[in-house]
């Protein structure tokens, strides 16, 4: 059973199952959308290896994501498997594809903005557009939001508060 399908087919099947595993803090984003799913491989003995990387050192969702991956694979009959946490290369928001950024915006979270080279100094602030009205007249309320990956902003055009998914680059 384990070896009935070729490895590329099995890897594609595993990836399809993992597309259903979401970031528990942003349910419209899968772990692949988030750039957290780094690799899927199959050992010679048929064990599926899923490699993930954390977004932030203290991301409290990692435990739940690991459990969700196991649950999704087991439910799909994909066993045995193991989930590996790998830190290098370090996660960056560059790994979030454009379509996923658009989904994030539609969900009400402003996607990461690339800081301009001129704004690298200690107190620099990016221009973050409001995810609802697209106005660039926004202000930061707090650098720290409800999760490690987000900051609090407010739109001074439509007056809605919103969350900004912070840009991480190395």
């Amino acid at each position, binding site marked *: 059973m384990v070896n009935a399908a070729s490895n590329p087919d099995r890897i594609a099947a595993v990836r399809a199952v993992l597309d259903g595993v979401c970031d528990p803090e942003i349910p419209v984003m899968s772990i692949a959308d988030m750039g957290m799913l780094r690799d899927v491989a199959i050992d010679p003995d048929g064990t599926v290896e899923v490699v993930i990387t954390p977004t932030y050192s203290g991301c409290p969702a990692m435990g739940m994501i690991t459990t969700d991956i196991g649950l999704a694979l087991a439910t799909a009959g994909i066993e045995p498997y193991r989930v590996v946490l790998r830190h290098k290369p370090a996660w960056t928001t560059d790994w979030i594809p454009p379509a996923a950024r658009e989904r994030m915006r539609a969900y009400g979270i402003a996607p990461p903005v690339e800081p301009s080279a001129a704004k690298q100094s200690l*107190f620099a602030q990016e221009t973050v557009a409001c995810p609802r009205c697209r106005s660039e007249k926004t202000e930061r309320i707090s*650098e720290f939001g409800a999760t490690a990956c987000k900051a609090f902003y407010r739109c001074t055009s439509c007056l809605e508060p919103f969350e900004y998914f912070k840009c991480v680059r190395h």
Partner: protein
Amino acid sequence: MAMDRETRFNYLIRQADNNMVLGHRMSEWIGKAPTIEEELALANISLDLIGLARSLYVHAETTAGDGRDPDQLVFLRDAHEYTNLLLVEKLNGDFALTIVRQFLYSAFASAYWKALSETEDDELAGIATKAAHESAYHLRHASGWLVRLGDGTGESHDRAQAALNELWMFTGEMFDMDDTDQAAVGDGVGVDTAALKDGWSATVDEILTQATLTRPADGWMIDGGRTGKHTEHLGHMLADMQFLQRAYPGQQW
């Protein structure tokens, strides 16, 4: 000369302990911070630090340890087995002291992790890269507050200056290089922190000037935390933090 396992383990545990102890201190602000936004900020910084500590404990155990998990290291070691810097175990004091402590440490940590991200130990390099980014963010937060406090009211200025004066003697320990540190540098998994001093000084001077605060003169610097000789405050912190595992060994949730 290649570093022995025990030295490597001890070196990594020092870095983990710094983050664990400071992370716990920051978590003590939950429920007491001056504003809700600031409460989230301090809790988030705490989470970053404890998460980083966890990664480092796991890495130390995986590459050089005896199989203990992070919970055992954190909850079942006594104060003399902790090897964090004395600076990070200082009581939170008032908000100014917490911010000054975070500022002095983050200015060091952001440079430290940046340097360590070049290590040939891939997993450690990845952990360090993430930590460098997060420490820079913590530094930005603490710097912003320090400027506001120092260049704020007479009261906030005096409190920030008093905190700076009180903590200054704890800053020397960050740049001490003992045999364990030297061995780690020789083995490519450590950082020569003495070489980070000038950069740290420049960062500190830049922000203190903006904050209209006076840099204290370098006097006698206290050390000992990294060899297990702690202030009385660490034992009290551990008594609180470790109570559950001491009273109900092996308890899980």
